[in-house]
């Protein structure tokens, strides 16, 4: 069995997180991906702390299944004239390029069968289109950070590079959709941005803000709430939702929370429909914590779920990796890098029954494959 994109060739003129993540997914799906780098390489090669020896681990996982070709000029507009790049583009089906890195119009005129995905921070139009940005700028400007931290204090960054990961998801979709339509429509350009992708992700919020019958619920009031750290059972941090509990009084009695029933906030507690996101959760959190601290996680789970609620553990990175279910799924994988050192990574996030994804090679050393292309001087086209 071969991958869904077997036979497709991709050139990646992109660095950092978003563009390379598109390349990673295309590569996982079977495409042959060549990464073009300047002499200093993708900036992500130098990310992470000094204590980590060698090329950054984030670069390695974002760039598996790729080969690396180095071109002389770091500013690739001049590299456009170079031999290797012309050769690569003339054989490619897809080009992934960061905004401002190539004259896309000229490339498309020379290579009319090439689907070109342009990745930017702010989108192709508007006053910010040529401004540099990045992950934190996109998070702040799309107000995505307003669902974390406290009002008036330093914004809290999302725990992962979400603007970039979502832009990658949309770039991947855009490329695949353009490839599907290529027979009918010819090749085309598709633009995605970090900012635009987070604007899409906040859609429920925008709809809620535009015309609500009543100003309530977590889509409207989570801004003004304090940080939610989870609930504490005797032995672990947990999270719960109790929106479907039929008889809250009975549940609270079973949880030995009679002290809460005498509390003036009890009406709030029993009407709170949704754990940490409920209308009153932040006001009644201490009642829950006092109640739950009488039980182990397993005991609390049994009681709450027998009344129709849901309880689940807050897992940290290692607990997630060690989770029995996760291990059975085979979510985390490992393979040797070019020096034989083990890279620990994550499998592709989809399963196609007949055209499986695959991890075929580790991330390349800078310019590891330049020679393969340098010696071929018969330029096509």
């Amino acid at each position, binding site marked *: 069995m071969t991958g869904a994109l077997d036979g497709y060739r991709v050139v990646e003129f992109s660095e950092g997180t978003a563009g390379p993540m598109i390349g990673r997914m295309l590569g996982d799906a079977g495409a042959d991906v060549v990464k073009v780098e300047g002499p200093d390489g993708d900036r992500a090669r130098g990310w992470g702390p000094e204590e980590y020896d060698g090329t950054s681990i984030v670069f390695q996982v974002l760039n598996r299944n790729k080969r690396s070709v180095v071109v002389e000029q770091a500013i690739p507009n001049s590299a456009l004239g170079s031999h290797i790049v012309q050769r690569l583009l003339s054989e490619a089906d897809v080009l992934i390029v960061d905004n401002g890195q190539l004259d896309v119009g000229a490339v498309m005129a020379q290579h009319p069968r090439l689907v070109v995905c342009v990745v930017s921070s702010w989108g192709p139009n508007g006053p910010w289109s040529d401004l540099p940005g990045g992950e934190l700028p996109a998070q702040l400007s799309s107000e995505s950070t307003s669902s974390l931290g406290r009002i008036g204090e330093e914004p809290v960054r999302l725990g992962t590079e979400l603007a970039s990961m979502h832009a990658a998801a949309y770039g991947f979709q855009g490329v695949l959709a353009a490839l599907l339509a290529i027979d009918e429509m010819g090749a085309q350009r*598709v633009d995605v941005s970090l900012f635009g992708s987070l604007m899409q992700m906040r859609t429920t919020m925008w709809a809620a803000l535009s015309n609500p019958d009543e100003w309530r619920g977590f889509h409207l009031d989570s801004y003004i709430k304090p940080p939610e750290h989870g609930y504490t059972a005797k032995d672990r941090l947990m999270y719960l939702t109790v929106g479907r509990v039929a008889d809250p009084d009975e549940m609270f009695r079973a949880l030995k929370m009679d002290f809460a029933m005498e509390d003036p906030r009890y009406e709030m507690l029993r009407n709170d429909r949704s754990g940490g996101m409920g209308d009153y959760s932040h006001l009644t959190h201490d009642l829950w914590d006092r109640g739950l601290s009488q039980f182990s996680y397993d005991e609390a789970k049994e009681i709450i779920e027998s009344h129709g609620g849901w309880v689940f553990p807050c897992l940290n990175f290692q607990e997630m990796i060690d989770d029995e279910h996760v291990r059975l799924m085979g979510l985390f994988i490992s393979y040797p890098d070019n020096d034989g050192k083990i890279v620990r990574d994550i499998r592709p996030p989809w399963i196609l029954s007949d055209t499986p994804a695959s991890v075929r090679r580790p991330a390349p050393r800078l310019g590891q494959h330049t020679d393969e292309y340098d010696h071929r001087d018969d330029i096509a086209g």
Partner: protein
Amino acid sequence: MGIGSKDRGPLAGIRVFDFTVWAVGPWASLHLGSLGAEVLHVEQPDVDWSQLSAGVPPSINGTSVGYLAWNTNKRGLFLDMRTDEDKRFAHELIKTCDVFLCNMRVGVPERLGLGYEELAQENPGLIYCRATGFGDCGPRTFERGGDGQLQAMTAFWAAQGARGEAAEVYRHYAHLDFSTGNNCASAILLALLARKRTGKGQRVDVTMLDAGATLSLPRFAEHMAGFTPQPQGSSSFVSAPNRAFQCLDQRWIGLSVTSQDEWQRLLRLIDVEELRDAKFATNKKRVSNRDDLEAILVPVFAKRAQSYWVFYLKKAGVPFGIPMDWENLREHRQVIENGYLTELHTPAWGDIWVGGPPWHFSKTPAHMEPAPIPGEATFELQDEIAKLEANEK
């Protein structure tokens, strides 16, 4: 028949049977619809509109905002899978579809007679996509998978929080649900491309656990390499200086230096001798000495107003961003000129803003249509099937 058109989008000609609930499945099909596919979104004929999309608040004219935001670009179809008549109708309709999409709990589609084996036999070109929380090969198979659960269980929260404080949950349900939906849409597109070569459909499985893990790929990779990320306010895990600084007017500005070139440009703008110390010479050194670096920069930014920094960072070519909110975003030229918000004029719910579309195609623009009145296309689709059956006879 070719796929794609200038008016409808790159997926014009593709038909999707959208047997989905809550957010994950609907999110996948709303994008397929925006890309031009015809999406048939199933609801129960006796559905109470206040209970659509599980009644997630707030409501707009009595309908959950979830239904309105997650079901754009679709046609409404009523099906009661408890009746033989509708069951038969469903099977006939699915024969005309390219994609079957569902996100019920494990075992539910099979119980309703909509399992993969059965449908693939009737329509060998069908792409059958199923999204679940946890797949079906382990002890969590039958657990409920929602955004909150998956945030907690995929360590999505573990590295986010104020400096030195405990980690915190993201107070909005979006990224886990929607990323799973995005992975469904992408995997369906892959299967459609494979079908161009093989002529055959296939089965597509996507889980929320996979989506959650992949979203946090950089953090898991760091952790597994021996560097467990901790909450650190607005500071980046991968580069420095890369955080929000407070300006003289109390406003914040987010600096995002991720390359040596950008660092040099910042040094030309902020000419402070201590920044030239060897311990800040490379990104890796700056990340390892982040606290010292930020301690120098915090008072520098605090000396000038936000607009000063916007002006000079822009001039110097140093990447930055500023916090915005709904009231300025909805009017902002960057949003308007890129179409990152769309105002939909709906028949039953007034004017509603939604995000997207997130792509710009040069030849086959994506489009946005409001969520359908539930079941609105049912008669039309019944007619279509009746005519098909009459022609076959």
